């Protein structure tokens, strides 16, 4: 059996769903950020697979991946910094306790 476009897309869709599940079900900020990272990496697989298996002339898909990785890292870096500050403020990084603002 050869690995084709459909296998890659299926893998990406599964990764995306797992990431989304992680974001929705986890209560720890770091775990949520890991879920976000999974979702972004699923997108990268999609781009590279489309670039490899469909008849396109340029490398736009792989270019998008490079930018997506960079942006994802920047987002997670800020997320970790914010988690650190929240831990300093409240001695916990459980998102259920972030309920100062309501209404």
């Amino acid at each position: 059996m050869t690995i084709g476009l459909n296998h890659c897309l299926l893998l990406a869709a599964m990764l995306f769903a797992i990431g989304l599940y992680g974001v929705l079900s986890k209560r720890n900020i770091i775990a949520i950020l890991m879920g976000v990272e999974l979702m972004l990496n699923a997108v990268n697989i999609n781009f590279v697979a489309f670039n490899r298996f469909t008849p396109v002339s340029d490398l736009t898909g792989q270019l998008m991946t490079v930018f997506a990785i960079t942006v994802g890292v920047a987002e997670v870096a800020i997320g970790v910094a914010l988690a650190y500050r929240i831990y300093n403020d409240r001695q916990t990084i459980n998102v259920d306790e972030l309920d100062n603002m309501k209404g």
Partner: protein
Amino acid sequence: MNFAAINTEIFILVLGLFAIIMDLALPKDESRKAIGGVLIFSLTAWVAYMFTMYTPQSIIADGGTGTRYFNDMMYVVDNYSIFFKQLFIVATVFTMLFSLEYMQNVLRYKGEFYALLMTALLGMCVLASANDFLTAFIGLELMTISFYILVGARISSKNSSEAAIKYLIVGSVSTAVMLYGISLVYGATGTVQFYDMLRNPALFSAAGLAGATMVMIGFFFKLSVIPFHMWAPDVYQGAPTPITAMLAMGSKAAGIAVFMRVLYVAFPLIGFYWLPILAVLSAICMIGGNIMAIRQTDVKRMLAYSSIAQAGYMMVGIVSADFAGMKAVMFYGMLYVFANVGAFAALSLVEQHRGNSDYKAIAGLAKSAPVMAAVMTISLLSMAGIPPTAGFAGKLYLFTAVVNQGYLWLAFVGFIMSMISVYYYLQVAKAMYLEVGDDEPIVISGAARAAAVISVLATILFGVWPEKLAEITNLASFTFLQ
């Protein structure tokens, strides 16, 4: 590579680097106001210079467009993008003007504030000009990542970091959803460029349709359209007030700018089927935003819901999908900037002197800061669309455009909801004028007073004499549709 086409972006980037370097070079105990002063002055001069960039009517009449491109159609500079860039720069200049004092007293890191504001502005400008999904994605992220940091900038407040992490999680999930959509569209059409995507039949394949839908949902998150709005009230309340103002004016207008380009240029055929859905969503936004704003006890939170409703009004113009509708959206976006500057200038003053921004804190503001109370009242009336303020002219353009396209019910919902919104806007006025609060006079800095008064003058001027602004928006939407 036509670098002359992107001179605005280069200029803003240089200003941002200047802010970083000056922050490092200045002594630690020196005030950072001077950096702000330089940025305000240079950006104001640049906005004036940008009027010469418009392609004039005479060239358009001869069939030319005067549109310039950078890097092979990736980046387009037309009248439409020039107008939106002016709008973003005006919003930033006013925000910096009324927040000079606020920053000195409330924030710990002042130099970074200016630098990040510049990168956010750069992101918005890139968004307005983006002509493929790669550029749009980079612009969007440059803007939102800067805002994640700025929202969390009030280190003394627990609410600020809470708002920032909520914004970050919702924002990055919506980014992932949008990117997934972009990857599917890329897979279906083999390109991420708007002009190549235009009328590509492959968009109507399953992958293309799913991708386009996910891209739209990503934009709805960014525009905080109900039902994708849940992050907005918390973020607006927790952020430092000048940043709340920037989120409401700049971030939203940038989202609208790129959304219109995606809808009309990249997906015009799919967009045709989307218009009824957009009409329903904008009605939900107007109804939900206005109803939920009534029961808020915090003015910033109330303004968050009101900004959801304003996004609904602007989407009314997008639904009409013609020359008049686009013009109305741009007109409304511009005067919404002036209305917001007035409201948030007063609110940041209150937050700075009384610690928070609920209805108790603004009680009796008419006695302690009469100018600011008057400015706030007029600005809120403009948001509600009461004549002779500019909000009335803006809503008139929006609703006429959509009625001409046959959506009478949408204009009807808009009218009713505007009337309802007067109730909660006037509650703010009631708290300021009739209720008894802290009578101690508040000292207002000259810069904040200037920002507030200029914005109110602009609100009234565009209300009684909208001709000049309407001419520019005409020019901008006309080249876009050619």
